């Protein structure tokens, strides 16, 4: 369904994606896992065409999105849905209008039919009856669910989730995780999730890809990842502070840096 080949993306001297190769199978849930700054969201933005890579390709239904014209890209995007980390709801529209927005923009469906579709989608995410509320009146979990209803309103073939459970309480996390799995099964949607939440990822994933500073260090089923012998993978899964993944990212020695600063201060004083 989606194939990433030799994808490279850099920001200045930082390599966010280092010749990445992976695929996202149709109708499966693939979770991209990794710590902060590992390049998960960057990879997602390249896959969706929101950013252009420095080199490499992203094939969606055998069309290379990195070389596609805007018109072709938009045609493919009509088959995609995305739930953003902050939900990205339009704050000047209420829940109903937010969800109906893509339908009104891209179709000529009658208003009464749009009303029915929105009600169905809201029922799927458990928010039927709240159509009149504004985004500012919603909790974080509710906003994610409205964002999800909006993402699936056009019946996409692929849905992308950017950190769907970040900042949510355990129950909301469970609800969102169940929704992701249910929608994948009920609607046969190819699902790509970017997350750093190990527990919920293991529950919903058919396949897991683990990123570490722009490199894929492991990919496979949940069991394959659990049984990985890579120390970095094990440290990430267990959340251990000890291991090959450093807590600090500075290259300089802490004691040397402190002593250098002290020397400079002494020189100024003398």
């Amino acid at each position: 369904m989606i194939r990433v080949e030799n994808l490279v993306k850099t920001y200045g001297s930082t390599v966010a994606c280092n010749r990445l190769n992976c695929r996202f199978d149709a109708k499966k849930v693939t979770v991209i896992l990794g710590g902060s700054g590992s390049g998960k969201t960057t990879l997602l933005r390249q896959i969706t065409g929101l950013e252009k890579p420095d080199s490499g390709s992203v094939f969606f239904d055998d069309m290379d999105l990195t070389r596609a014209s805007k018109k072709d890209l938009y045609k493919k995007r009509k088959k995609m849905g995305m739930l953003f980390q902050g939900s990205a709801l339009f704050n000047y529209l209420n829940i109903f209008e937010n969800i109906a927005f893509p339908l009104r923009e891209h179709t000529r469906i009658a208003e009464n039919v749009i009303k029915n579709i929105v009600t169905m989608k809201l029922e799927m995410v458990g928010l039927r009856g709240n159509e009149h509320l504004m985004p500012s009146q919603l909790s974080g979990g509710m906003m994610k669910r409205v964002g999800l209803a909006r993402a699936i309103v056009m019946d996409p073939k692929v849905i992308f989730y950017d950190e769907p459970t970040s900042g949510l309480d355990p129950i909301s996390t469970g609800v969102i995780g169940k929704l992701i799995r249910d929608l994948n099964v009920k609607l046969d949607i190819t699902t790509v999730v970017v997350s750093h939440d190990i527990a919920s990822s293991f529950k919903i994933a058919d396949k897991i890809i683990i990123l570490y500073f722009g490199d894929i260090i492991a990919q496979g089923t949940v069991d394959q990842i659990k049984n990985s012998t890579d120390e970095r993978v094990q440290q990430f899964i267990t959340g251990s502070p000890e291991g090959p993944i450093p807590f600090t990212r500075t290259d300089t020695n802490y004691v040397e840096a402190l002593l250098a600063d002290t020397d400079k201060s002494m020189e100024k004083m003398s």
Partner: protein
Amino acid sequence: MNLDIAASIGQATIARVQVIGRSGVFLFFAFFLAFRPPYRIFRLIKEIEFVGSKSFLIVFVTALFTGMVLGLQGYHTLTQFGAQALLGSAVALSIIRELGPVLCALMVTGRAGSAIAAEIGIMRITDQFPALEMMAIDPVKYVISPKILAGIISLPLLTAFFDVVGIMGGYLVGVQLLGVNQGAYFGKMITAVTFADIYGGMIKSLCFGLLITWISCFMGFCAKPTTEGVSRATTRAVVVSSVSILVVDYILTSLLL
């Protein structure tokens, strides 16, 4: 040392030129996309309501008091030469040629320009532009183009409204309060004001409408995705728009005279 100074001046100049170039490309695309289907008439009407209708009160108050002050000052100055009868033409020409377009544009900048920059900046912070992109909707066409068109349509209308209210403000003070002859006030005005004056004022207001919405949209669009970034974008939108209005006013006046 001198080389460092020259280098930093050079870098700053290049950065400024790049920003001007980007803003030009931004305007080009906003215009280009505005005239390509699908046409979003309701979006345009909504923006005209925001930029135009909602500015009516502030424009009314500003115009009324500007006209009243002009009536007062004009009367006392013209009395020294025994030329009170010219009050109507003095008030009308000042307002139609200069004060109407400029003050109206400055008021709209303060009210709508800052709000436009803040709205677009917040849309950036909250990922609403990528969300539009993911829904296969061009954010520039959907958000920016209607705002710029609304500015171009609204400002001349608001300026015409300002001119009428300003002249009536001058009438209230000059004729009703200070006793200038009503016939002289309007008669001299009609003979003094030519179509070129009105046309010039409208040309100015059209340019100001474009400037305000273009600069405000661009500042919001380029805002850093932080709360501080949005606040800076809002301030810059107002400051740059206001200064640009005064500079462009001088250029247009010199061209139109």
